[in-house]
């Protein structure tokens, strides 16, 4: 049976990086997944939640839960948004019925790399870019959802590219949502350290699974005129052609 997945393309991904969403759609279709994009979705509400606007975040959470209530699986291409849905939505609800609905959605929600590796069991992909790749752990995916392995498994087995570990890959890139504009100097100092580590690996590309980290790292790399690219995981994965004669 063809699995069906509902895409949650949250704010930054919708407005700033739509090409990432496009790639995800094609990638999943290439893996025989039927992709839906439920109408009316906006943002997961994490920016509101993290700044302490919990009543407002709860209102956003409620409508997001309603929009995805019927979905078999929900795929979120950003670790922090996935964390928000899985980790914080249920606690924001005020009635038992709402909470049950939120927990159902939370249980069916997967960050993209987790969906590929843990739900579909697919690890072998071809690289859409050549050269050397490294990986930055987004904080919410790593420490919030305890996921370090799925993205690495995909990158290690990627055909046509070399994977190297990034020293201090588990350290924050300095984005932190509103933190990046409330304390821009500190945010940038943290970013500079991260980018220094990235450049020291000699990688052509640093891969991440979070729109926030990508915005921060791309912004910094472009400003320093670096040749290194920061790409979303979906931008480096391509479905391998079926191998002739393989079972």
């Amino acid at each position, binding site marked *: 049976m063809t699995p069906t997945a509902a895409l949650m393309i949250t704010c930054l991904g919708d407005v*700033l990086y739509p090409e990432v969403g496009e790639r995800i759609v094609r990638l999943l279709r290439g893996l025989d997944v039927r992709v839906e994009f439920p109408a009316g979705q906006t943002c997961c509400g994490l920016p509101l939640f993290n700044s*302490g606007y919990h009543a407002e975040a709860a209102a956003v959470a409620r409508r997001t839960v309603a929009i995805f209530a019927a979905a078999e699986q929900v795929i979120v291409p950003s670790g922090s948004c996935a964390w928000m849905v899985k980790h914080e939505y249920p606690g924001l609800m005020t009635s038992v019925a709402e909470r049950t609905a939120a927990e159902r959605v939370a249980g069916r929600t997967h960050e993209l790399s987790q969906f590929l590796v843990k739900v579909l069991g697919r690890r072998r992909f071809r690289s859409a870019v050549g050269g050397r790749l490294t990986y930055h752990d987004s904080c919410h995916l790593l*420490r919030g959802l305890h996921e370090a392995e799925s993205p690495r498994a995909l990158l290690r087995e990627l055909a046509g590219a070399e994977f190297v570990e990034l020293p201090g890959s588990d350290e924050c890139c300095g984005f932190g949502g509103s933190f990046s504009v409330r*304390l821009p100097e500190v945010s940038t100092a943290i970013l500079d350290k991260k980018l220094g580590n990235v450049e020291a690996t000699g990688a052509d590309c640093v891969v991440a699974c979070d729109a926030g980290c990508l915005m921060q790292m791309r912004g910094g790399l472009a*400003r320093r005129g670096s040749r290194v690219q920061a790409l979303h995981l979906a931008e480096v994965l391509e479905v391998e052609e079926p191998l002739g004669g393989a079972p």
Partner: protein
Amino acid sequence: MEPELATPFRERAGRALDDRFLQEALTVATTKFITLRREAFAELPEGDALRDQARAIKEATLQRLDYWLERLIERIESRGGHVHYATSADEARRVVLDIARRTGARMAVKSKSMATEEIHLNDALQAAGVTPVETDLGEYIIQLAHERPSHIIAPAIHKTKGQVAELFARELGRETEPDPEVLTRIARAELRQKFLDADLGISGANFAVAETGTVVLVTNEGNGRMVTSLPRVHVAVMGVEKVIPSMTDLAVFLAILAKSATGQKLSVYTSLVNGPRRGGEPEGPEELHLVLLDNGRVRQIAGPLREALNCLRCGACLNVCPVYRQIGGHAYGYTYPGPIGILLTAMLNGPAAVKDLAHASSLCGACMDACPVRIDIPKMLIELRREVDQQGIAPWPERAVFGAFAWLLQRPRLYRLSARLGRLLQRPFVRGGRIRWLPGLFGEWTRTRDLPAVARRTFHERWAALEREARR
């Protein structure tokens, strides 16, 4: 008000970023601490279980804090010690000053204690004619420099060895190479006579064991042992939450405390103080006083910051915090720096004190990960932000922006329209799909980073075509 607070937090942080010496010292020290901690726990397969156990002990003790404090008081008094309960910093200072006055003390040697920093004891002693002498090397350094600790366990972490050598030359008249061993020897010689001359020994306490009435001090330099045994009178100042039930519990904490703090299996000295000198004992103080400090703690047993009462003061969350690693401890402006420090500052000074500090975190969660008792610091930082918003302490334009954002997110049609509006507004600023400069709040971003332009077509606007593609 604390002296540093005259300048806004962002400016204090900016100065720290520009301080070349601070940056060098911080990078070296925190990197070392992180590596040592990681190695120490790698060798301890039961580490995670011990951390869970430690947390459970702390939680269970908090549940019955009154009971365990009574047990502790009873045990200490039965050994001839005295216990004082101080509701506020002011009361705690008065208790110590009264003891100093009654015993005619002129000089007090101190071992490292954040609780006495919290109540600003040194200034009070000085004003009362009692000279306080810090005997922990780091504390000694910053006392000479007339500064305050910038780290919970490594008070002089912000100083390079070169700066310490300069300080010793200036303050002690001892010119020397910036060699830590030589510098330590100088401090040691300076301090030896002080230990012998002091009337009063003042310490903190890492734990107090209720069932035995034991005050526990964990140190590396042996100064704690001298402070608690050489002078006639020993006063220990301790937050009420540091009481633990039994020696068995103590063993759990000792197994993880030093590993979290410095990566040591155990600290060099673990001193168990069991009351004043008794008949027939050759040494020890004639009087032992324990000052139990509340100062806003007890209120939090039922408050939003309850979990912060589990803190062991190991400093691991500071070492791993990307913000602390960039700005160091002084920029925070209060006694306790770093992620846990923000919570403790709110506990001691109220949420208004942390209206900026509550945002001094990217919420990366490294603190919670490193915490030996897994305190959910990010959750409580968010909670503090919420309090700051709700009590109207946050500036109104900020509240208005978030209010408007929330409103927009619940109106999908307008939300999609706003992308078009963004495309229109950004037009003068976009060059090659990127924005290098924007005015106002966005300028805080574009000063150091490019901003991606709003896409020519959002994902929403591309979806129809993607659906057609599937049907082909």
